[in-house]
Each structure stands twice: as structure tokens, then as C-alpha cells.
């Protein structure tokens, strides 16, 4: 018995050691770089110096940048609410048919990187050769189209259509989780269905709607891909693209300026998150209670109209850009129009035979695989430690992981650049020492991805863990297993499909990641996203479209696989 106790303690300590190491790595690769960034913003070569910060904030350009960024984020947020709330209501409260398929289709933009959808929209609405502009020109004349996507409105349009699922899914969740008798009581008190919506349903889901809108605001503010592809060509800059430009420039002044902007971005994100935390708590308070099957509003003769409109949204938000993307990828020569003769799969051959594509693809694949493995392994351990054990400091790791998750990717990447652009000297006991430069290598990308998505790994593990009945683990404990033993022999095997799903759910977004990749890639480590940007900006959009189409295919099938693996609980 003593031996077993000792083993138990050792294994529990084993878990603690792993947690401690992971926490340490988070401190080094997330907290330290962020701290360094904040310090460098107020400490110059001569010590404490508010000068650069003050001049950056006093600069009119900075404020106009902030204004543009906030406008873009607000506009996006507004569109997400306008689209997300009604769609959620129709899905949760009416008798539209094929809800499963409809919900999946409406949620599609959530899993596709917005910059890929942007390529499709650009093909349609760019001022020079945009398709729609071309058609409008035949009606109204002119050489340059009336619609210019390279603008603030263009960014809002693309981002709004890409992020409305955030609001839709949150609202839908809240609606489904509501006690149906709250609405029924209003009906029996004399309220007609529409009255019920405005006096009971909406007030109760308002916090969830606001939370979704805030999240959309935050994500829009932190986004890089769309502002770069859609805004920059029109000389509309936001915080993220301006930081990128400054870092690209590389001078002392530019870096200092970038740091100043990064701090602003960070502060704005922090404020948004704090407000969101309050909203989430409020929402949970209002909706506590039994969930149940809500009474559905029978749409009667309005059903075909509603169904048609909802599928119309799918068509517009998903179908149009994707179809345009695929067609663009088949274009023989850009600008020569979309005549059928001009379409051929030749581009696919060109792109595939290009060495760069294969290298970039491979880079992204192995980096994403490694990052996914790290995130799921550490995430699962952290989730298990927090929820099922009483180890000291078990909350530290998930808490630390939330920081890089919430921080805008640009800011995190900046921090990593500042912290690790020098060589690191690692002393091996003895006389040998190793020089190690992380910058421009695959390691810095791996670190960035792992640190950014770790919280996501924890969250998906949390969700998967709730499916494992506590009594199964308790039975193992009373049979003599230690916490680590229970974890390895009972929990992990039971969670296996969910773990695979979680792995895929981290793997896919990492493949499509651009915000950090564009700042951290090196000559040998260009990722597939960065390559796509190269093609779109410097070569030919059809080539970019080829890469984009393949990425979409991989991402969608990956998500559907996840859905199958978890019986619909995770994934699309």
C-alpha cells in the first residue's frame, strides 16, 4: 500500500511537473514578450522615456488610424448583428425545414479564413476589372466601376459577411438554452407571438447578442488579412496593417512607432474583453434555468419566403465568394473576362509544379501538426488538472493561456520579435554552449501558433471532458488508480474521438493563419497563407485563388470530419 501511495504521489507530481513546465513556457513565450513590448514602449535606449509614445499618440495619423480601425470594427459588428440575430431566431424559433443543413451552411464563413473569401469579393468588386463593375459599366458607362471594394466599406462588407456566424451561433445557443415556459407564460398572459419576441425573448438574449457583437468587434479590430488585401490597395490603413508596414520598414523610428500602435491595439482589446466578461456573466444569470424544447412559431404561408431568404443569405455570404474564388482559380488570364474559353485547370498545374507551393504547403502542414499536437496535449492535461484534480496551481495554466488567445496576433508577433530576434545562448552543462536563433526559423512560428491556440485546446478539451461521466473516473480512483493513471487509462481513451476532433480544430486554423505568420516567417519558412498573399499581391490573383480553393476544400472537409467524429457536438 505504501508503494502504491508513493506511486500515486509520484504520478500526481508528474502531472504537476508537466503543468509547471508548460506554465513556464507560457511565461517565457507569451507573458515575457508582451511584457517586453509594454516596457519597450516606455523605455528607450536612455531609460524611461515617454517621448516616442507621446509623439506617436500626439501624431494625427495615429488617431486617424485608430478612427479607421474602430469604424471598421463597429461597422463589422453592426452587420454581424443585423445578419446574425434574425438567422439565429429563424433557426431556433420557427419551423423552417432542414435546420441542420441550414445551420451548417450559415456557419460556414466561421471556418473559412476571411481573406480567402476576400479574394472572391475582390474579383467581383475591384474598381479596375471587377466583374460586377464590368456589368454596371455596360449599363452606365465609365472605365472604372462605380463600386470600389478597396475602401473602408469594402472591408466592413467582407468582414461583416465573414463574421456574422459569431453572433448567430451565440444567439442561437442562448435561444435554445432558454426555458420555453418563459415565452409560453407570455402567450397565456395574452401576448401575440411578435409581442413575446420583443418583451421576453429579446431582452433575455440581449447579453448573448452583445457578447457576440463584441467578439466580432474584437476579431475585426485584430484582423490583418482582410485589411491588407482589401484596405491597403485603396490606401486605407488600420492599426494591424500599419504595424506591419512599420516592421517591414525596420528602422528604429518605425519600430518605435509600431510599438506605440501595438500598445493602443492591446489596450482597445483589453477594454473590449473586460466588457465582454461582464456581459457573459449577466447573460448566464438571466438564462439560468431549465432548457427545453421551445414552441416553434408556425410560419404558414411565409415559410417558403423565409426559407428562401435564409438560403439566399447562404448563397450570398458563402456561395458567391466561393464560386467566384473557384472560377478565378480557373481563369486563363486575369482581366480577360470570364468567358468560358478562358477557363481551364492550367493554373492548378502551374501552382502545384511550383517548388514554392510545395515547400510552403509542407511547412504549413508540419507546423500546424506540431502546434495542434502541443495544444491538444497540453490543453487536455491542463483542462483535466483544473476540472478533476485538486493540485495546487491547477488554474494557473488555463489562466495564463487566455492571455495570448485574447491578444491580437499582431501584438503577440511583435512581442515575440522584440524578445527573440537576438540569439539565445543555451548553456549545456560542461563547456559546450549552443547558439540558437529563433527568429526567422520554424521555431518561432511553432511557438507563436502553440501559444496563441493553447486556450482553444483547453476549451475544446473542457467541452470534451464534460462528456465523460465523473463517476467513471471515480470508479477508477476507488479501484486504486492515481490521478495520472485515471487520466491515461480512463479519460483519454474515452475522450479519444473528441481529442482527435480537437486536434483537427486547432490544425485547420493554424494552416490558414496569416496575422502572425506574415510577421514571423523567414526565407525558409514561408507558410501557405503567406504564399497566397504573395500570389495575390505580386503575381496573379488566379494563382492565389488556386491556393485558396484548396485550403477551403481542406478546411471544410476537416470540419465535417470533426462533426462526424463527435456526433455533431464539435465542428460545423
Amino acid at each position: 500500500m505504501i508503494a502504491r501511495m508513493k506511486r500515486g504521489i509520484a504520478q500526481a507530481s508528474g502531472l504537476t511537473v508537466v503543468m509547471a513546465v508548460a506554465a513556464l513556457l507560457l511565461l517565457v513565450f507569451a507573458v515575457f514578450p508582451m511584457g517586453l513590448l509594454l516596457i519597450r514602449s516606455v523605455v528607450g535606449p536612455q531609460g524611461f522615456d515617454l517621448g516616442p509614445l507621446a509623439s506617436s499618440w500626439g501624431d494625427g495619423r495615429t488617431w486617424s488610424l485608430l478612427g479607421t480601425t474602430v469604424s471598421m470594427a463597429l461597422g463589422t459588428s453592426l452587420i454581424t448583428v443585423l445578419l446574425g440575430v434574425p438567422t439565429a431566431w429563424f433557426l431556433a424559433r420557427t419551423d423552417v425545414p432542414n435546420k441542420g443543413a441550414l445551420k451548417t451552411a450559415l456557419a460556414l464563413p466561421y471556418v473559412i479564413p476571411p481573406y480567402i473569401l476576400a479574394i472572391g469579393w475582390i474579383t467581383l468588386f475591384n474598381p479596375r476589372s471587377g466583374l460586377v463593375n464590368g456589368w454596371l459599366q455596360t449599363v452606365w458607362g465609365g472605365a472604372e466601376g462605380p463600386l470600389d471594394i478597396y475602401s473602408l466599406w469594402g472591408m466592413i462588407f467582407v468582414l461583416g459577411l465573414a463574421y456574422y456566424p459569431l453572433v448567430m451561433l451565440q444567439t442561437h445557443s442562448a435561444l435554445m438554452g432558454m426555458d420555453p415556459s418563459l415565452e409560453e407564460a407570455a402567450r397565456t398572459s395574452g401576448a401575440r407571438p411578435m409581442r413575446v419576441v420583443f418583451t421576453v425573448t429579446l431582452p433575455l438574449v440581449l447579453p448573448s447578442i452583445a457578447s457576440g457583437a463584441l467578439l466580432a468587434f474584437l476579431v475585426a479590430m485584430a484582423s490583418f488579412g482582410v485589411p491588407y488585401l482589401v484596405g491597403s490597395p485603396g490606401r486605407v490603413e488600420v492599426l494591424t496593417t500599419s504595424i506591419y508596414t512599420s516592421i517591414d520598414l525596420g528602422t528604429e523610428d518605425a519600430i518605435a512607432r509600431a510599438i506605440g500602435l501595438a500598445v493602443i491595439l492591446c489596450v482597445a482589446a483589453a477594454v473590449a474583453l473586460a466588457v465582454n466578461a461582464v456581459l457573459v456573466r449577466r447573460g448566464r444569470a438571466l438564462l439560468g434555468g431549465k432548457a427545453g424544447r421551445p414552441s416553434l412559431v408556425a410560419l404558414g404561408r411565409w415559410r417558403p419566403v423565409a426559407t428562401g431568404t435564409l438560403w439566399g443569405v447562404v448563397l450570398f455570404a458563402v456561395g458567391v465568394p466561393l464560386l467566384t474564388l473557384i472560377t478565378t482559380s480557373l481563369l486563363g488570364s486575369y482581366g480577360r473576362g470570364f468567358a468560358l474559353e478562358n477557363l481551364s485547370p492550367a493554373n492548378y498545374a502551374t501552382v502545384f509544379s511550383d517548388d514554392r507551393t510545395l515547400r510552403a504547403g509542407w511547412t504549413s502542414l508540419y507546423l500546424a501538426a506540431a502546434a495542434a499536437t502541443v495544444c491538444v496535449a497540453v490543453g487536455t492535461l491542463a483542462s483535466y488538472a483544473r476540472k478533476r484534480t485538486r493540485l495546487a496551481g491547477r488554474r494557473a495554466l488555463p489562466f495564463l493561456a487566455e492571455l495570448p488567445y485574447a491578444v491580437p496576433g499582431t501584438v503577440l508577433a511583435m512581442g515575440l520579435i522584440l524578445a527573440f530576434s537576438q540569439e539565445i545562448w543555451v548553456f549545456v552543462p560542461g563547456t559546450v554552449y549552443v547558439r540558437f536563433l529563433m527568429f526567422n526559423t520554424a521555431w518561432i512560428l511553432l511557438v507563436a501558433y502553440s501559444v496563441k491556440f493553447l486556450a482553444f485546446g483547453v476549451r475544446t478539451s473542457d467541452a470534451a471532458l464534460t462528456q465523460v461521466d465523473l463517476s467513471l473516473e471515480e470508479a477508477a480512483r476507488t479501484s486504486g488508480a492515481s490521478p495520472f493513471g485515471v487520466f491515461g487509462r480512463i479519460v483519454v481513451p474515452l475522450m479519444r474521438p473528441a481529442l482527435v476532433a480537437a486536434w483537427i480544430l486547432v490544425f485547420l486554423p493554424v494552416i490558414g493563419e496569416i496575422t502572425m505568420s506574415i510577421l514571423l516567417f523567414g526565407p525558409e519558412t514561408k507558410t501557405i497563407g503567406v504564399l497566397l498573399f504573395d500570389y495575390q499581391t505580386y503575381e496573379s490573383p488566379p494563382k492565389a485563388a488556386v491556393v485558396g480553393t484548396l485550403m477551403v476544400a481542406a478546411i471544410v472537409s476537416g470540419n465535417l470530419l470533426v462533426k462526424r467524429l463527435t456526433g455533431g457536438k464539435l465542428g460545423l
Partner: protein
Amino acid sequence: MAQVQLEAVVKSYGEVKVVRGVDLTIADGEFVALLGPSGCGKTTTLRMIAGLEAPSGGVLSIGQDVVSAPARGIFVPPEGRRIGMVFQSYAVWPHMSVRENVAFPLKLARPRKPAADMRAAVEKALDMVQLGGLGDRMPNQLSGGQQQRVALARALVMEPRVLLLDEPLSNLDAHLREEMRREIAQIRRRLGVTVVYVTHDQEEALALADRIVVLHRGVIQQVGPPREIYERPANPFVGGFIGKASAVVGVLESLGADALVVAVEGGGHIRVATDAVRMPEPVEVGRRVRLLVRPESVTLGEGGVEGTVEVATYLGTQLELLVTVGAARLRTPVPISRGATVGEAVLVRVTEGHLFAE
């Protein structure tokens, strides 16, 4: 105040028939309890009266109005039926104060009452449920019992013609349940409103109702005043569901002028005086039968058959014994002072019973 009438009301969900042809007339001002086990269709029936579910067939009328008749394409939605409903989960709106909750139906009524009248009506309703003075509280500041009263006040503020209650007391603890039961009875006496009350708790039904409707698998088993349901069950289901009857299955061995004897399946004989046995339908000797014996009809003492105490359960108020006579197992209460030991030999007499053909 109105009567409620159900004619051949049916409800199916796809292939599944949840309510199969219910015929029921609830008189104006009557308190009717729908009683039955889970899944018997009582809640579905109540929701059809409320208009929250539409029947698949039949006719439902409240007062003079036909409110549901699928064959004629008639369906009046809940907001048009002028009923009051109290839900099992209270359904008190968390984003409105107590007063706002209770005032809600008044604000929707057309023609609208003047503001002063509405305020007075709300106060009156709150007083009736003993919540006067708590009008400004928010629901999350109230206990479960208080929230239930808010729900009741809200249902009554419009002076509805019918009051529907869906297992209103099942979420409350025993003390509170009794208290609320008394209050509901009191309110009902004062207002004289027609009440339809769904419950699975027979004690509640027996205590509150003018008539009880016992439902099983969507079919009405028996309708009658509490006494009749308890003392003269029409079939084995009702007999078994109401009261904690023990069932003895066997063959009717003899039927004399004085006494009848049941040969218990598995061994043993039970003897009961013939005029103390209720037989809704005559049973011939030799038939397989089910004899239902209520605990209060089993006594231990002289003149009985040999039996053994199998289980003795301490219930605080009494000792509940499970006594075996042959293969039959009979439940019976004894005072704590008597005491009992497992395996004790006793003499068992059955003083009353209900006999049904199996």
C-alpha cells in the same frame, strides 16, 4: 367563469398517440385534477386546453367558444383564450420586477384599463397570494415559493375564466407544498374560478379536487369525486395507482355467501368476507384474478392466516411491514410501539379488498 369541454380529443406526434380520445366536461367553477403517472398525457391535455399544443382531432371548447377543432380548421391561439396558467418552473420573467410580471397581462388586455385600475388590480393580486409589499423585488431575490406565488398572482390578475396549473407544487419542498396547497384551496374558494390541475401526486389530487380524472397512456381510466376514486376504483390500474395497495394475483378458488378465497399463485390462500370485497364486474370461480388490498385493510391479530414479517420499515409516524402469506406480499402499517422483527410469525386478516379479473 366557464366550463371546459373536450370531445374525442386526440393528440399524436407522428406515429405516437399521446392522448387517445378524451371526452370530458368540466363544469363551471369546478376543480378538476388530471392525475396519472409520467407520460399518461395529462400535461399534453392541459396544454391543449391552454392552446400551447393543437389537438390532432376532436373538439375543445371553453365556455361558449370552440377554441380547437382541427376538422373545422379552428384554432384559437393561447393569447386569445382568456385563461390563466401557472407553469411547473414558475416561468417568472427574470428581467422584470414582481409588479411588472403581474401587470403584464393587464397591459395587453384590450380595452385597456386606466392606469389607476391596473395598479389596484396588481396590488389586489399580490395581496391575495400574500406578496403585498414585495412588488419592487426582482425574481432572483425571491425564494422558489415566492416565485410560485408571483406566477399565481400573474395568472389570476386578469380574473380568467379558467385557471390551469401544471404540476405547480412539484418543485417545492414538503412543507412549502402543504402551505401552497392550502393557499390554492383558499384562493379557489374565494374566487370560484374553474380550475384544471395536473399532478402526479395523488394526495394533492385527493385533497384539492372536486373530481379526479385518472389517465393512463392517453386514455381516461376513471372520473369521479376523490372518495369514489379511492374507495371504488373501476379497474386494476386505478386501484393500484391510488393508495399503496398490494396486489395478490391468483385464482378465485371459492365464492360463498360469507367469504371468498383466493388461491395465491405460488402458494397460500387469502380469505376475505364477501361483502367486504368490491367487484366492479362479477367474476366466476376458477378465473384468474387480481385482488387489490390496501394497507389499512390488513390487520394483524386473532382469526387470521399464518404469515411472516419480511421487511419492517421505520417511517417516523408508523412502522410499515411487508408480510408474506404464502406467495402473497401484503403491506400494512403498525404503530411504532408494537415493534416488529424480521421473520416474526404473525396472524394476518384481510378486512377489505377490490377484486378484478386478470
